[in-house]
């Protein structure tokens, strides 16, 4: 999630852990902080603020953006628009990044977007087994379950059992395709459009598009 520093990246004196040396190194400075998580965060914020390295007003702004501005309604907008506009859907499936950028949904953790469409033949589902990669500009901050060991461990091996935890059962003729987000490419699932939604507007359709349906652990709501 952090930006690549590119050529601006300081090569960091003393970054012994990061350099080419054996990595069974037990040195963990984080153990110097208080063990209680809330106190840990408070201590870090206080140290960084006093050093002038973090501005609390910037922290408030980051939180406000992810609590109130960037979230799964962005993705729902994209899906509803795709349902209602075949040319938009085709462009989205061809190369999603510029298409969602045109709607204002480019940014951190959504630099390389791929949209995958659910059909009767295939149901797509997204996971990050190695960490918690997720398309932030379209879906916001991932839910706790997406970041949980249980989801990360099980989604690739038994996606249908995981879907059952979400009360979703797929027909036997539908294949499940699980996308493990191992690089900087982020995946958006386009859920199947529910029956009986012909003639609905983009705004009306958006209300049917849940966060989970865009991860692939849910289906779109029926009206």
């Amino acid at each position, binding site marked *: 999630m*952090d930006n690549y520093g590119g050529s601006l990246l300081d090569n960091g004196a003393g970054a012994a*852990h*990061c350099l080419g040396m054996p990595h069974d190194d037990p040195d963990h400075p984080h153990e110097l902080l208080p063990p209680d998580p809330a106190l840990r*965060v408070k201590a870090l914020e206080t140290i960084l603020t*006093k050093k*002038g390295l973090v501005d609390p007003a*910037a922290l408030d*702004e980051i939180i406000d953006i992810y609590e109130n501005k960037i979230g799964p309604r962005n993705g729902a907008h994209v899906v509803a628009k795709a349902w209602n506009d075949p040319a938009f859907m085709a462009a989205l499936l061809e190369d999603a990044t510029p298409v969602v950028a045109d709607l204002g949904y480019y940014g951190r953790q*959504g630099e390389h977007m791929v949209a995958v469409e659910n059909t009767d033949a295939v149901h797509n589902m997204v996971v990050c087994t190695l960490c918690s990669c997720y398309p932030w500009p379209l879906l916001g901050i991932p839910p706790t379950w997406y970041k949980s060991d*249980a989801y990360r461990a099980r989604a690739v091996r038994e996606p249908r059992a995981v879907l059952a935890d979400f009360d979703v059962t797929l027909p036997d003729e539908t294949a499940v395709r699980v996308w493990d987000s191992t690089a900087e490419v982020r995946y958006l699932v386009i859920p199947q459009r529910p029956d009986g939604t012909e003639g609905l507007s983009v705004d009306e359709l958006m209300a049917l598009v849940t966060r989970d349906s865009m991860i692939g652990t849910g289906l779109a709501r029926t009206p």
Partner: protein
Amino acid sequence: MTRVHDMGGRFGDGPVTPEPEGEVFHEDWHKRALAITLAAAAHGKWNIDISRHARERLAPKDYARFSYYEKWMAGLADLLVDTGLVSRAELAGAAPDVSSDTSRTLRAEGVAPMLAAGGPADRPSDVPQQFQPGDAVVTRRISANRLVDGGHTRLPVYAAGACGCVLRVHGTHILPDSSAHRLGEAAEPLYAVVFPASELWAQPEHPKDEIVLDLWQSYLVPA
């Protein structure tokens, strides 16, 4: 061999617990942890691969017992000391010195532009593209960083030594195995590779199911 974070396919983690869409953060300190992590990264002392590796090289016992944002805080604390932004004494409670360089400290007005700019991971590369969609490929038999023993890699153990088929070409992207250790961006072709579930699991849930991973060219050989 990779590390404790590489949990795809593991047994024993229990059910996945869904949660409602509206709850972005569950504790006040979670918000602050996320915001501090993003703000600290603005100093350009590390990239996303370095920060991922900082979490992955937590002691396995800590990785397993820490909640999500506790892992972030521990990884951040270790990075702050590694890169010299914060001293051990300061982490341990000594009065913090004002930093000598606060020129890149993120301010409130800089937050939205920073998030909107993102950090794309595609780069030009001289490495010729070896595979096309439809080509059969095999992943390295051993999932491990070839540059640094015990270092960062994005080939999960569960997909090592497996035969799949190239589905998409994502262009040329920074190689995390190099970038995480400050050894250069080393961009090379990145592919989405699809594997039948039966290639990865002893007891696949369904004969039609598939798993897709994003894999760098150097993780692959022709089948």
